[in-house]
């Protein structure tokens, strides 16, 4: 699989070609620039080397020349900038209907969970030709999800989600690295991405799982008693979550936010910070009560009730008494 002495990395994603093209362009541009400067230096150094009795000729400078070599590089730089920004925006905009994989990084391993429910450690199986969106967070320090063959890298931060996406184009096994220094076994935080033909992938997927992630999320949703307030009608003390995901939400203080993964996450961990208009800040925090994996499942669940419309929403509500979890803080009177 790996050659002994490669000089070019594998090109195994839809993005790799874009990055390589830009890279080659830059190599040519800077190669020409280097050649120009080196040739000039070497030629001048040889041609105008010290000879007895031949004095140097004084040239003060030349404004047109200065302007030329200010403006031409500026122009070249702008071309590079625009091109690279276009590539960057492609990298940073996940396609809408991508398959989702939740990634939890911790010192020093990658925990990956498919939306379909398969869990993997330090290994990710994906099919060729399908868009895969990674929803990533870290349990401890900053890590970085790096797959050189996909030309893809994204830091994974604690306390929030960062996103990345790719579409694999070539079956094979590719390196997965942690690229942000994360402590002692940083160099051990490596894994592989296994890209499979769709048929093979289906076979692998059918290898069994505990059901889709959203189902796990639904179970947790019920266990934590969330459904008491977040009811499938307008009578709940909390907003109805159906159809909410991905839509703009107006907050109590007038701000508008999009109900994306990070908003759902923040609303679970720090419910008081962005309360939806028309509701009271009565929801307790779940900080420290749910693990990163459970959070992911909850996010997946909230997403699923938005996508499926009202169909999956009506679950056995009121199964647990309201306000079961929460911060049991004895209020300190001052």
């Amino acid at each position, binding site marked *: 699989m790996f050659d002994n002495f490669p000089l070019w990395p594998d090109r195994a994603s839809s993005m790799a070609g874009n990055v390589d093209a830009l890279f080659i362009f830059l190599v040519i541009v800077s190669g020409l620039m280097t050649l120009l400067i080196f040739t000039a230096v070497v030629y001048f150094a040889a041609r105008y080397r010290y000879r007895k009795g031949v004095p140097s000729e004084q040239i003060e400078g030349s404004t047109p020349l200065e302007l030329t070599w200010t403006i031409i590089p500026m122009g070249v730089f702008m071309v590079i900038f625009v091109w690279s920004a276009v590539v960057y925006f492609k990298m940073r905009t996940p396609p809408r209907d991508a398959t989702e994989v939740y990634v939890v990084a911790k010192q020093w391993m990658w925990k990956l969970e498919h939306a379909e429910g398969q869990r993997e450690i330090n290994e990710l199986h994906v099919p060729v030709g399908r868009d895969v969106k990674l929803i990533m967070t870290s349990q401890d320090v900053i890590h970085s999800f790096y797959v050189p063959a996909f030309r893809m890298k994204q830091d994974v931060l604690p306390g929030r989600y960062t996103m990345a996406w790719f579409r694999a184009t070539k079956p094979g096994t590719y390196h997965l690295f942690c690229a942000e220094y994360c402590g002692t076994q940083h160099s051990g935080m490596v894994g592989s991405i296994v890209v499979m033909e769709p048929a093979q992938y289906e076979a692998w997927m059918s290898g069994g799982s505990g059901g889709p992630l959203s189902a796990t999320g639904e179970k947790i949703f019920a266990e934590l008693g969330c459904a008491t307030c977040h009811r499938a009608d307008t009578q709940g003390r909390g907003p109805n979550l159906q159809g909410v995901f991905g839509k703009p939400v107006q907050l109590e*203080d007038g701000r508008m936010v999009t109900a994306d993964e990070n908003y759902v996450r923040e609303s679970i961990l720090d419910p*008081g*910070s962005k*309360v939806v208009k028309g509701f009271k*800040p009565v929801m307790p925090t779940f900080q420290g009560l749910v693990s990163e994996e459970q959070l992911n499942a909850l996010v997946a669940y909230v997403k699923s009730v938005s996508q499926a419309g009202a169909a999956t929403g009506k679950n056995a509500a009121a199964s647990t008494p309201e306000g079961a979890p929460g911060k049991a*803080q004895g*209020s*300190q009177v001052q």
Partner: protein
Amino acid sequence: MAAHTESHNPALLHHFATEEQQRNSASFGMWIFLATEVMFFGGLFCAYLVYRRWWFGDFAAASKSIDAFLGGTNTAVLICSSLTVVLAIWAAQTARRGLMILMLVLTMLFGLTFLGIKGIEYKDKFVEHHVPGSSFSFDHEEIPGQPGHYANPHHAQIFFALYFVMTGLHALHMIVGLGIFTWLLWMAWKGRFTPEYHTPLEIGGLYWHFVDIVWIYLFPLLYLIDRHP
């Protein structure tokens, strides 16, 4: 100014050509140092700005728990001390040694008053468990203007962390300033300052005024985020 006055004044250092060059160098050096100080506090102001925008309500609630009257009094105290500093320099310029010493003493008294009031404020915060750390607590504090909405203690702790670092650093500058003014007072007592030579007084004054300016910003930013009932 080609008037060569060297060897007349013992305060003229040998590597300077003229007294004017020496004085200009010293005051310019102080201004550059103050530029450094601006950026030193600037990092903190930047952090403050970021979190104030993120956690505005929590910051407002935390800010309300500080005694703004004490902060306001301290602002007035510092402003008075700035006045006494310029008066001390004026006294030196007009050869009023007694007045100069009086003004320097007053400046230091104002400085000590400031630190004393600051101490009361810190003590209050300590008693209320508002000092960040293991004993920190800020539960059930309502966010101003949002009844029933309580501040997140974690976010309030960030406010208090910034409050203590910023005012603490400011207080440290006050203490250094008092040290400088003790030295200036001693020099003034010894009669070293004349209408022609009082550069240390001027650059010491620049430092003192700068510390005053920092406080002029700290007061509204930390004490008055959201005070209306």
